[in-house]
């Protein structure tokens, strides 16, 4: 063992058709790099001798992996070893077709791959399928090991034929292997040492090849993508936490958050028990704070202006399917892309490819287990994404079915001008009164209905906050509407004045209208001075009777500030005696005793006020995750 510090680690997956010698090869690697526990080799040689069977390096692997019952690798297992240069993790992936999902799990995290083909059997079904999947998983460093050369008399012809055939296959799928090496893992041929039996081979041994693999390059120089994992408020700081997937973020950077297109500036970069710096690079799990508190949340992706991603509800992808049930056109699935989680469906299957022979079919309506397909996917809400060839981390996704990751895909294209906007939303649905239940509606909407009642003085900012909240929630695909006090007085309440009785009736009508909307699944924002406690209590009662969540929000801008703002010059008129019964001047305002939320809009920007309301409302209208099994 060497005593270098471990500064580098490279992950290698070993793939290939079943019984082409993966376990034997790994056992040999361990032996040749002096990685085995003391006495292990001798112990196994001894056991083999006693049983009168030849010693197998594969047994070494099996004994390390406790795969005593079966002689095939079932799940992917990972084992460490070192050369002088660096540490390696060997990922042993199963070669059986039934265990393809495990092969993919193992291979997805690899930096490089050894693909084994047995010389005596040649290129087989899983040799090709694994090659195809390596390319889909983005593993560009592939070395093909033609194993069991001892069984074909170390024949250069056999080796060359296999190389030509497999190289041609890889070329069709756009893979350029680094090299082909003839080996015999059992005897160690060309693993650690060259052998005269293959003196026609002039290339490197496997161990020399290993140290030639390059480490993945951190995508520091690509455009910034910082998907938010969460927003934390454990202390006075409001920290947006996430991992920089690509690019670099610095204090002072102006950030755009996709897909909503909100902007703010980085105030600090947060870490704990680490030297404080003013930048973070790709790969770092950090936190940031912003100069202006805007409403952003998990799933939003921070980027720099001018280098933004797509924000789209439709994209093209190449995907592989591992699900217990086939993937069907039109079925709603949960899709995860970075920290974004959304509902989507396959709109069209352009081509289904059998990865073991590259035959294609263009008329299928579903994608079976182990198949690969080219598809168009449509999502319910706009999603921030890149094409895979531009930025890997934001260019791939997984599909969940039956509560498990069932498929993975890479994004090959998206509409050119797909900037998120309210326009590319589906139009709101008209509900049928008779048979659709409230539960049906909340399942469809993915949120509950609610009434959010904003009360406060004239000029406090109720309507401005309501409009901002409405916009944000609409962009997110939620069913939302605003009942504005002033607007209602144009129609529904046009026969009412400002006496206590009329105000009371005004509030009753508004509450009833809000109730109807909430019952059909809407989040209904009511923006109304509603100065009397008793009236607001009645509104709450109406909702409670109908089992609708009522959220009272007090927009608590003080009178002096409202009067200073006086956007409609109403305070001026009231002071001059031109307006009777004006709340705060000539009529009372009864401050809420226990509002659900108190928003001091004199101390916060409209966006910040809206952010607080949204935070609060989202938590209240969320459908319990445990019951959400329909997607």
């Amino acid at each position: 063992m060497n005593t270098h510090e471990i500064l580098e680690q490279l992950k290698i997956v070993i793939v290939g058709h079943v019984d082409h010698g993966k376990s034997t090869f790994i056992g040999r690697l361990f032996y040749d790099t002096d990685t085995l526990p003391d006495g292990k080799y001798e112990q196994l040689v001894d056991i083999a001798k006693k049983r009168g069977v030849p010693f197998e390096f594969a047994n070494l692997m099996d004994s390390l992996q406790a795969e005593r019952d079966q002689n095939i690798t079932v799940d992917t297992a990972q084992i460490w070893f070192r050369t002088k240069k660096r540490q390696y993790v060997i990922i042993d992936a199963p070669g059986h077709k039934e265990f393809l999902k495990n092969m993919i799990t193992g291979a997805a995290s690899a930096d490089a791959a050894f693909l084994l083909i047995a010389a005596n059997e040649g290129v087989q079904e899983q040799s090709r399928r694994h090659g195809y999947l390596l390319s889909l998983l983005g593993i560009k460093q592939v070395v093909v090991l033609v194993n069991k050369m001892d069984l074909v008399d170390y024949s250069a012809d056999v080796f060359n034929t296999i190389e030509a055939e497999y190289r041609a296959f890889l070329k069709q799928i756009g893979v350029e292997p680094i090299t082909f090496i003839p080996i015999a893992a059992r005897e160690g041929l060309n693993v650690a040492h060259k052998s005269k039996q293959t003196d026609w081979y002039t290339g490197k041994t496997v161990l020399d090849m290993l140290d030639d693999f390059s480490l993945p390059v951190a995508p520091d120089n690509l455009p910034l993508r910082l998907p938010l994992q969460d927003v934390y408020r454990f202390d006075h700081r409001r920290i947006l936490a996430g991992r920089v997937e690509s690019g670099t973020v610095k204090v002072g950077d102006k950030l755009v958050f996709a897909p909503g297109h909100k902007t703010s500036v980085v105030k600090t970069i947060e870490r704990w028990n680490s030297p404080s710096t003013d930048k973070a690079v790709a790969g770092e799990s950090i936190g940031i704070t912003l100069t202006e508190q805007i409403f952003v949340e998990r799933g939003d992706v921070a980027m720099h202006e001018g280098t933004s991603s797509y924000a789209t509800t439709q994209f093209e992808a190449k995907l592989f399917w591992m699900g217990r049930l086939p993937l069907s056109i039109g079925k709603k699935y949960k899709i995860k892309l970075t920290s974004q989680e959304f509902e989507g469906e396959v709109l069209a299957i352009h081509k289904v490819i059998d990865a073991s022979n590259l035959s294609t079919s263009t008329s299928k309506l579903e994608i079976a287990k182990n198949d690969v397909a080219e598809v168009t996917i449509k999502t319910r809400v706009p999603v921030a994404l890149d094409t895979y060839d531009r930025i890997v981390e934001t260019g791939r996704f997984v599909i969940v079915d039956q509560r498990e990751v069932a498929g993975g895909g890479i994004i090959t294209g998206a509409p050119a001008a797909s900037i998120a906007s309210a326009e590319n939303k589906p139009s709101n649905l008209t509900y049928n009164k008779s048979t659709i239940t409230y539960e049906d509606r909340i399942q469809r909407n993915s949120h509950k209905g609610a009434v959010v009642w904003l009360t406060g003085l004239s000029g406090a900012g109720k309507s401005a906050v309501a409009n901002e909240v409405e916009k944000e929630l609409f962009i997110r695909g939620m069913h939302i509407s605003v009942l504005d006090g002033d607007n209602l007085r144009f129609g529904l309440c046009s026969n009412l004045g400002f006496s206590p009785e009329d105000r009371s009736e005004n509030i009753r009508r508004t509450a009833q209208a809000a109730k109807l909307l909430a019952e059909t699944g809407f989040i209904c924002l009511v923006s109304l001075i509603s100065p009397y406690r008793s009236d607001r209590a009645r509104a709450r009662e109406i909702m409670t009777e109908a089992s609708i969540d009522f959220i009272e929000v007090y927009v608590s801008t003080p009178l002096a500030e409202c009067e200073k703002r006086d956007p409609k010059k109403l305070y001026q008129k009231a002071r001059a005696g031109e307006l009777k019964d004006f709340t705060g001047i000539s009529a009372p305002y009864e401050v809420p005793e226990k509002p659900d939320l108190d928003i001091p809009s004199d101390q916060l920007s409209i966006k910040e006020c809206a952010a607080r309301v949204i935070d609060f409302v989202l938590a209240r209208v969320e459908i319990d995750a445990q019951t959400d099994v329909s997607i």
Partner: protein
Amino acid sequence: MHEHLVELENQSIYIIREAFHKFENLAMLWSIGKDSTVLLWLARKAFFGHVPFPLVHIDTSYKIPSMIEYRDRVAREWNLTMVVGQNKKALESGNTFPAGKATRVECCGALKKDGLKALLEEKNYNGVIVGVRRDEEPTRAKERYFSPRDKNMEWNVEDQPPELWDQFNTDFAPGAHIRVHPLLHWTELNIWEYIERENMPIIDLYFANEKGERYRSIGCAPCTFPIKSKASNVREIIEELKTCKTSERSGRAQDKESEDAFEKLRRDGYM
């Protein structure tokens, strides 16, 4: 950025944050040992000095006494919410190895596995963060970062869901829970290198005493034995490990009762 420890740290923080987001009722197991103490440290990293979920310690009552002292002191200093579980029934009935009525493995099963199971049920945790590592022993090599356990806590190792591109399985059947393994990809050496780099506190049982003995892995006093060693600080432990070829759990007697003892325990829900 290729420094391997940095990569490991960032990945673990990412996983811990994912778990915190996904599970309403999340807990972290803290055995007081080096791995779960590093895990705890990483949680403080992830949440900027805070630990926003309870730490669960399954107290078999046979732990080395200084472990409990250490636990209580750190819990106070770091402002941790501790939840201590114990299988009182098994202890009272004396069906334990130290009482002579059970094998070591049976004892582990009762005091640790069943103790944990009872606590999970009582507290209704649906996510449990655990500090196991792939390099510890063969069954752990096959673990996923997010690993489902059914309502009987059983692990279906032959048919695990795929896991790729840091998209974890967070949906599960009622009654099931998910084990989260942020340290899966760390090695024993990585753990010590990280303890050194962070200059973080660790219980002194790991350091050689005047008799020239130290613990390489800590657990219950009757089943955990120290190794001969002169390594009396973190640096010396790192140097020792670099030339060491015996297994980390060689001082843990319960692993050796039968060839597949540990594998069976893990399938049944052991950590």
